């Protein structure tokens, strides 16, 4: 008998709880009207960023293209007169991209980055193929100060041998013997 009473009490509390919820304001965020600010590291539409001086960061090393699990990144590398490498063309097929973020992790120059812009739906699937002009932005993304050629030991206009940040002058290997 006590068991039955307990069961009835449990049922009544359950029904009371759901009934009370009937008069609460719904907590739904109604998407197209209300857009919540997404976390900084949300993985969506990919951009190609520039260094603080406005140069393209991408050095066309093919690492992102190699690591991409769905092979949606392709490019052609070339070299400027001053020794800076760049991509003559750079293409991302967003119809294939799974937004895993591996390209961003692989990038040695912080060039390729994922942004929070996720509303990329299109009627025509071919409009989802983005060329370099569509991908390039004029800011540094998440890593604003970084300039790859100021650190890398590559001779460009940014500096010759031993003139980069945290780089020692080249030593004469002949005089450096033990």
């Amino acid at each position: 008998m006590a068991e039955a009473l307990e069961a009835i009490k449990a049922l009544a509390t359950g029904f009371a709880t759901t009934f009370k919820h009937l008069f609460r304001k719904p907590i739904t965020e109604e998407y197209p009207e209300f857009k919540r600010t997404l976390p900084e590291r949300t993985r969506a539409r990919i951009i190609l960023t520039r260094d603080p001086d406005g140069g393209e960061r991408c050095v066309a090393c093919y690492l992102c293209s190699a690591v991409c699990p769905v092979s949606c990144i392709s490019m052609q590398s070339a070299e400027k007169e001053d020794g800076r490498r760049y991509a003559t063309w750079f293409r991302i097929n967003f119809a294939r991209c799974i937004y895993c973020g591996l390209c961003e992790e692989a990038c040695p120059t912080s060039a390729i980055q994922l942004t929070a812009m996720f509303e990329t739906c299109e009627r025509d699937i071919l409009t989802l193929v983005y060329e370099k002009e569509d991908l390039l932005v004029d800011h540094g993304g998440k890593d604003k100060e970084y300039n790859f050629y100021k650190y890398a030991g590559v001779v460009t206009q940014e500096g010759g041998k031993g003139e980069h940040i945290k780089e020692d002058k080249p030593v004469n290997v002949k005089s450096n013997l033990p």
Partner: protein
Amino acid sequence: MDWIIGIIVLIVKLGLVLVGLLLLAAYLVWVERKFLARLQIRYGPNRAGKFGLLQPIADALKLMVKEDTVPEAADRILFLLAPAVVATSALLMFAVVPFGSHLTLWGKKIPLVITDLNVGLLYVFALSSLGVYGVALGGWASNSKYSLLGGIRGAAQMISYELALGLSLVPIVMHAGSFSIVDIVNAQAKYPFILLQPFAFVIFIVSAMAESKRIPFDLPEAENELGAGYHTEYSGMRFGLFFLGEYVHMQVLGAFVAVFFLGGWRGPLLPAPVWLFIKIILVALIMIWIRGTLPRLRYDQLMAVGWKVLIPAALLNIMVTGAILLI
């Protein structure tokens, strides 16, 4: 000449009831989705039209234009027939529900019921047993393990709750002294039977919910274990027919709760069909509330409740009612 007028009147009544039932079934889906959403502090459908009122129409259109697939290994004829069995058996049950006493048109009395069978109650039970065939055959003909399990569960569940359903209404028949549903409503002219038979009411509601395969008795379709149970393999409007059957069943259940326990179309002020409508909606809302609150029963619990609680309680209720009526 008389029989032609009779047939015309019958067809008009059939048409009105059918359209009413189907429209109400569509909007019952909307009511359920809205009400259930509010119970879970959500909004529910609110995109198609004002308050999402066009949602049922959009759903129906979508179901109709979807491809109607038949699995290669399925038993084709049975597979195609099973949804119709479910939908028609649910729709036909409404034929004996009175929605008013009678209309007088051009000096002729037109009873507001499609047919006043003298065994109306038995007709209802017969049809609700037929509904089991739709579920069991649909599950079997799909030739899929999920469907088969759903169908077996459906058959077992509905057969065991049929007993309690029938037995719970025997006291009502004893009070009214007739199997005719019109007579049963007329017997409640002074007071509804729920005051006389509260236990029968509870037993009837529980077993009728099990009959209509709704949460907490939705074992035949148990989404998280069986995919979608007996209608896993169905698509398009054939799935829609199962769906329609379920919601028509909900209305029929509401109508029978009203007819057997709440005095049917009787009520003050408002016209008779409106009272029946209000009672149907009320029962439907309570069923949705139950759905929003209770989890699904386990299979053994389901059987234990049916055979060890509801059937003995219903038998006891019959004996006590009989004893009281004799004294």
